[in-house]
C-alpha cells in the first residue's frame, strides 16, 4: 500500500490536472469568443511551439536554453549568496544590524524600476540577467535561513553550552541541521522568484531568451508564442520547485510523516 508513491501514481493525477486545465482554457475561449490577439487557444499555442519555425529571430531552443541556463546559474548563486548572508547575519550581531536593513531596503524596491541603472551598470546578457535574478530572489533564502539558524530549542542550547561547546560547534552541529526545514521552505519560495527575476532581467535588456520572446511577440500581437513562453516559464518554475521538494525528501526523509493530511 505504501508503494502508491510510484512514478505513475505521482504523474498520472498531475497529467490529468493539466489536461483538465487546458480543456477549461479552450472552453473559456470558445464561450467568451476571445480573439486571438488577446488570448490564443491552446491549439494555436502548441502549434507555434512545435512548428519548427524561427520565432523572434531565433529558434525556440535558443530562447529556451538561454533562459534555462540563466535560471540554473541564478538559482545556484542565489542559494550560495543567501546562505552566506544568513550565516553572517546569524554569526555577528553587528552584521545583523547592518545587513538586515540594507536587505529589507533592497527588497522593497521594484527591480523593474531600476532598469536604466541595471542597464548602465550591468549591460545586457547572461551575467546581467543572472545578477538581477539574484537580487530579486535572494531574500527568502536569507530570511528563512536566518530564522532557521536562530530557532533552536533553548534547553538544547543551554545543555550544549553547559558542555562548553564553542560557538562554531553550536553552529555546525545544532543550528545548521535544525534549520533545514526553514531552509527548504526558503529555497522553494526563491525557486519561483528566481524564474521571475531572470525574466525581469530579460525585460530590462536582452537579445534572446523567453523573456525577450514574450516582449517581441507581444509587440507583434503574436500571442501564441507569447503564451507558449509564459507556460514554459511557469513550467520551469514548477520544475525547479518540484526538484527542491525532491531534494527535501532525500535529505529529510523523516519529514513526510508529519504532513498535515494524515492527521
Amino acid at each position: 500500500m505504501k508503494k502508491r508513491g510510484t512514478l505513475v501514481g505521482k504523474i498520472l493525477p498531475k497529467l490529468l490536472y493539466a489536461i483538465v486545465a487546458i480543456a477549461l482554457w479552450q472552453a473559456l475561449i470558445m464561450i467568451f469568443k476571445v480573439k486571438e490577439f488577446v488570448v490564443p487557444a491552446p491549439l494555436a499555442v502548441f502549434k507555434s511551439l512545435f512548428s519548427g519555425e524561427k520565432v523572434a529571430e531565433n529558434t525556440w531552443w535558443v530562447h529556451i536554453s538561454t533562459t534555462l541556463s540563466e535560471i540554473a546559474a541564478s538559482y545556484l548563486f542565489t542559494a550560495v549568496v543567501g546562505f552566506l548572508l544568513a550565516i553572517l547575519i546569524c554569526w555577528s550581531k553587528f552584521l545583523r544590524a547592518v545587513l538586515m536593513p540594507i536587505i529589507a531596503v533592497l527588497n522593497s524596491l521594484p527591480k523593474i524600476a531600476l532598469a536604466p541603472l541595471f542597464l548602465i551598470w550591468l549591460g545586457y546578457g547572461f551575467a546581467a540577467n543572472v545578477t538581477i535574478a539574484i537580487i530579486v530572489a535572494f531574500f527568502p533564502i536569507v530570511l528563512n535561513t536566518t530564522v532557521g539558524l536562530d530557532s533552536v530549542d533553548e534547553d538544547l542550547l543551554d545543555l550544549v553550552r553547559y558542555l562548553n561547546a564553542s560557538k562554531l560547534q553550536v553552529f555546525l552541529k545544532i543550528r545548521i541541521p535544525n534549520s533545514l526545514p526553514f531552509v527548504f521552505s526558503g529555497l522553494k519560495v526563491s525557486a519561483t522568484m528566481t524564474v521571475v527575476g531572470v525574466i525581469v532581467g530579460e525585460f530590462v535588456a536582452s537579445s534572446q531568451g523567453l523573456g525577450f520572446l514574450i516582449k517581441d511577440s507581444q509587440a507583434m500581437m503574436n500571442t501564441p508564442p507569447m503564451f507558449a513562453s509564459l507556460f514554459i516559464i511557469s513550467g520551469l518554475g514548477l520544475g525547479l520547485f518540484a526538484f527542491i521538494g525532491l531534494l527535501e525528501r532525500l535529505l529529510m526523509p523523516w519529514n513526510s510523516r508529519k504532513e498535515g493530511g494524515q492527521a
Partner: protein
Amino acid sequence: MKKRMLATFAVAVLFLAGLSAQTTKINFQLNWSISGDHAPYYVAIEKGWFKEEGLDVNVMLGKGSGFTVQMVDADKAQIGISDAPVPIEAIAKGAKVKIVGIIFDKHPNCMFFWKDSGITKPQDLKGKTVAVPASDGHKVMWPAFAKLIGLDPNDVKFVNIDPTAKPAALGSRKADVVFELYTGKPFMEKAVPADQLGWIIWADYGFNAYAHSYIANDNFIKNNPEALRKFLKVSYRAWQYTLNNIPEAIDILSKYQPINRDDFVANLTAVKEFFKTDRYKNFGIGYIDAARMQDTINTVKEKGVDIKGDAKDYYTSAFLPNPPYKFNY
C-alpha cells in the same frame, strides 16, 4: 393657476430632458504614459470644451498601441490613440475598430546616436547594435523602413530594452543606436550632451506611413456618430490651440499630471515640427491622405499580414471636423 403649473411642468420636463439628453461618457485610451502630445486633451478638459459638446471624457493612460487596440476593440475604451499600422493589422485579424483621424502628419520616428559613431545616413546602421523596446512602433516598422533604404532588416542587431532605459542605453554606449521619436530628443539630451547627439528622422528618408492615429470602436461609430464627430472636433480644436500656445498648454497639463514643465515644453515644441506640413496647412489637422493611408496598409501587407477587404474597412474620414482646423504655422 393651471396655466402656470402646466408651464412650470413643461419647463421642468424640457430641463430634465436637456440634462439627461446628451452627456456621452467616453473612455479615451492614450497610447502611452503622459507626454507632451497628450496636452491637447487636458487643455480641452480644462477649458470645458468637451463639456460644451456634451462629452464626459475620461482620459486613461496607455501601455502601447497594441494595448489601445485591445481596449478599444473590447469597448473598454470607445476611442484611443494607436500607431496606424497596429490597428490595421488588428483589423485584419478581426478587431472591431477603425482609424478615424490622424495626429502626427510627418512621421516622427527617429534614431539617435553619438555623433562620434560616424553615422550620417540610415544605411550606416548596417552591423550596428540598436536598442529599442520590443513593442515600440520603431521596431514594428523597422522592416518597412529597412526595405525603403535598401537594408536587410536583419543587418542590425537588436537589443530589447525596457522603454525607460532608452536614454540610458545610449548614454552608457551599451548600444550604438536607439530608436526613439524625435519628440523624445529633450530626454535623450539628458544622457547625451546636445552637441554630441546625432539623429536621423525616418521621414527625411522617405518614410511615409502614418503614425499616431485616433481609433474608435465599430459599435461606437455606429451608435454614437455625433459623439465621435464632436470628440474629434474638440480634439483638433484643442490641437490647434495647443500648438499655438505651448507654454500655457503645458501649464494646464502639469495641473493634471506630475511632469517637469521645462522638459515638456521642449517636448511639445518638437511635436509641433511634425504638424508643420502643407497638408495640415491646407486641409486641416487630422486630414487623412488616401494614398498615404493605402501606403501604410501596404506596408502592413508586406509584413505578411493577410489584409482582406479594402481601405474603407480600415479607416474613415467621415468624422473629421468640418470646417477643418487648419494649422497656420
